[in-house]
């Protein structure tokens, strides 16, 4: 008797377990992707939400943008993800035309530790470049004082803190400095790893933030999300229209909107949005991209991939700000939704 009850219970449990699972494995297809670590928190949330709603599982390995591009080129993943657009050489090395889909906007905040400073620091592009080039060495330098009128700046030495590990954050920051400073563009240039003229390298956002927090006179750059979640002091940076804008989700979206309005109809979205036009645009921002082959070998996978691309452009974008990622401006979402259709099946 007891035994029979046990079997019944077991069967009931099995039925209960298999019910939703059968429903969820709509197609039995799982997509795999690999790449950037910076958007990993929001991507994880998206993939989890999407799996709950549609039943399609997406496995994402946050191995770094370089790794994502390499795996996409080798065809071992269904999509890649990168904080920097693929270079022409990388596109040529891929197995076919690759499409870039911007997902969210990342902003880089400049954080500092200036003893006795209360008001938020104002920095312009040329002053930032001067500091990171080692030309401005003290906080009371006249070039910093000129744009921070009425603020008492100490005579402390400036210590530059930068990322030691290769990072999309470094890419965005150096892209901005190269755009606003000729000296920077000719010297260190733009990249995920640089040859830094001055300063100390620390690993990860937490390493840079820790170094800045502990060292009087230090200045460094971290992701906006990290700065917000840890309540770090952040500088207002002068944008292309001359206004000093504090980093925020809204000002990063504004930067994208300013650039998006000027994009030609046939853009491949490999565009930089640093030093963007618009009075409220924060100048150190960038898209992060999903990388997808235009020609897909597997029809059913292509259909799932397109379904996900449409989902992130509608539902996904709405939840971006909850994790401190800036969503795309509405005008871009419309254009990108149309663009999803051109991801075609059949090689």
């Amino acid at each position, binding site marked *: 008797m007891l035994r029979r009850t046990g079997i019944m219970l077991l069967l009931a449990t099995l039925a209960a377990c298999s019910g939703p699972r059968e429903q969820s494995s709509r197609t039995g297809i799982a997509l795999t992707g690999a790449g950037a*670590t910076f958007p990993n928190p929001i991507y994880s949330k998206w993939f989890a939400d999407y799996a709950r709603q549609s039943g399609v599982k997406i496995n994402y390995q946050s191995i*770094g943008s370089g790794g994502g591009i390499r795996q996409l080129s080798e065809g071992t993943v269904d999509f890649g993800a990168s904080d920097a657009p693929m270079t022409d050489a990388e596109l040529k090395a891929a197995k076919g035309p690759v499409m870039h889909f911007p997902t969210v906007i990342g902003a880089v905040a400049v954080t500092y530790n200036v003893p006795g400073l209360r008001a938020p620091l104002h920095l312009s592009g040329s002053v930032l470049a001067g500091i990171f080039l080692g030309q401005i060495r003290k906080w009371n330098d006249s070039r910093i004082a000129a744009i921070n009128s009425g603020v008492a700046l100490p005579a402390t030495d400036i210590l530059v803190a930068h990322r030691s590990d*290769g990072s999309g954050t470094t890419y965005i920051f150096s892209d901005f400095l190269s755009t606003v400073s000729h000296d920077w563009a000719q010297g260190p240039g733009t990249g995920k790893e*640089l*040859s830094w003229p001055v300063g*100390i390298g*620390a690993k990860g956002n937490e390493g840079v933030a820790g170094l800045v927090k502990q060292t009087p006179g230090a200045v460094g750059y971290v992701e906006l999300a990290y700065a917000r979640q840890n309540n770090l002091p952040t500088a207002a940076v002068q944008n292309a229209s001359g206004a000093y804008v504090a980093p925020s989700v809204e000002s990063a979206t504004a930067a994208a909107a300013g650039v998006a309005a000027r994009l030609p109809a046939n853009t491949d979205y490999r565009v930089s949005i640093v030093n963007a036009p618009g009075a409220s645009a924060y100048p150190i921002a960038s898209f992060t991209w999903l990388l997808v082959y235009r020609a897909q070998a597997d029809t059913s996978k292509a259909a799932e991939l397109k379904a996900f691309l449409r989902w992130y452009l509608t539902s996904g974008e709405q939840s971006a700000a909850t994790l401190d990622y800036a969503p795309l401006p509405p005008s871009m979402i419309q254009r990108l939704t149309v663009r999803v259709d051109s991801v075609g099946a059949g090689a």
Partner: protein
Amino acid sequence: MANAPQVRTIDAGTPPFVSIHDRAMGDVIYRGVILFFALCVPLLVLLVGWEIARAGWPALHRFGLSFLTSSEWNPVKHIFGAAPAIYGTLASSAIALVLATPLALGVSVWLSEFSPRSLRQPVAFLVDLLAAIPSVVYGLWGIFVLLPVLRDPVMPFLRDRLGLGHTPFFSGPAYGPSLLAAGIILAIMILPYIASVSREVLLAVPRSQREAALALGATRWEAIWHTVLPHARTGIAGGVILGLGRALGETMAVTMVIGNRPEISASLLAPGYTMASLIANEFSEASSDAHLSALMAVGFTLFVITILVNAAARWLVWRVERGGRVWA
């Protein structure tokens, strides 16, 4: 006993033991299997070396000797010179050895010669426990405890109060992340290896040696210094070599405290770089072939330097050992 007749009936059918031929077969198979396992390890080392060398060859070929001597490491312009990382690896390991060896010897001499029996096990356990702490935890401790302490009282004290700032080795600003910090973290990390090997070796020194020395009128100190330590010299050196190997390859904790600046500076207060941290920092985001190849070449250089340093240390031990016999 009841089974005995049964055994005998079986014996009547088959020989009581396998024939000599079969036994030889067993030996051959056994020898083959063991040989295979024994060869696996050196083969693995050779394979690793070969693969890294192959992947790093384009960079080594392009930059030639300047890869080892140039100080410029510029991933944007594809110019790669690993000299600062090589210097940093050797310097931080040297600092670690200088700091850790006396400490480890002190611990092991005390444990083997002086400690009360009730304290020996707990203290030995705690020292060994240092080896069980993950290196990222050492790194975090380094960032939050060691660096602030170095920055404020220790480095200014060494530089200004002790006047060491007049020498090139302790000059310049004291920010915290530095070769010195890396050396100290490494010293703590390799201490348990040296201490644990030395303790076992010292405990293995025959009692008669100590008794003989004491009987000749030596103090306890003299007995240890002149009799026990020389007897254990080779084993202790083995422990130091083990620690050195560990220090050369340590990555995470060093990356977190060394400052990651590819520059050669005589000052221990200045930031530096090591080969292992260079690879760990840049590998995941390196996408160009030239950059990847340069990182592989750094890996190969580290591989070769580790082997060379270990070989040199072993040769030194061997010479001292032989020298010792000549004196005796």
